[in-house]
């Protein structure tokens, strides 16, 4: 695969994502992996269903990589997000960022996941024992009405 960001229906191989960013200039790789959690606020999840506006989501993921590139010196970022039905402990997202020194790797990886949750067109539907619901606005910090998400918004979050 040539590109550093992708949406897939297949299980994500963590090593594939990390392999995109390992390089001689880097001494640190930070990886964030989002997995399906069984309980949220005491409620049991049976499984999740992820949906994406694939073409736009990949474009936005690539933009996040560019934003990271502009904010931190000498980074390489790769992001894979899965869609379809995911069971408990399945991997939904893998982010890998490599940098020369570790501090930047942590910061950039954190930035990536916050930006994904802010503006990448991917949705999850929770399936519980007693029903299901498309989840929106996980950050619960703001209304999205008539708003265009801007760069760096997460820093106020």
């Amino acid at each position: 695969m040539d590109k550093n960001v992708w949406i897939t229906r297949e299980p994500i191989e963590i090593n594939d994502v990390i392999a995109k960013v390992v390089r001689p200039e880097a001494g640190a790789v930070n990886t964030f992996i989002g997995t399906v959690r069984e309980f949220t606020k005491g409620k049991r999840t049976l499984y999740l269903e992820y949906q994406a506006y694939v073409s736009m989501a990949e474009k936005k993921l690539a933009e996040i990589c560019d934003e990271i590139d502009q904010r931190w010196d000498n980074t390489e970022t790769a992001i894979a997000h899965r869609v379809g039905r995911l069971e408990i402990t399945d991997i939904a997202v893998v982010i890998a960022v490599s940098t020369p020194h570790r501090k930047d790797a942590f910061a950039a990886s954190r930035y990536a996941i916050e930006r994904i949750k802010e503006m990448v067109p991917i949705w999850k539907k929770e399936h519980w024992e007693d029903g299901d619901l498309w989840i929106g606005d996980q950050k619960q910090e703001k209304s999205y009405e008539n708003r265009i998400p801007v760069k760096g918004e997460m820093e106020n979050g």
Partner: protein
Amino acid sequence: MVDVLFFAELQELVGDEKLSFQAEGMTVKELKASALAKYNLANIDSAMIAVNEEYADEDTVLASGDIVAFIPPVSGG
């Protein structure tokens, strides 16, 4: 024609992931008020709008071949 894409709960309410309308020259706001009114999409105003895969505001004027997408609050990650 203008393609209109729906996701998540909006897609379920509309019953389709894509509809096409003759909406050339309309703003997105006008599209919502006219063609989409009959679907009773209660939460459509809390969806962000994308035109041709870029976030846009609802005063954007549509041209033939444009792809409009309504983006409910996202929950990836």
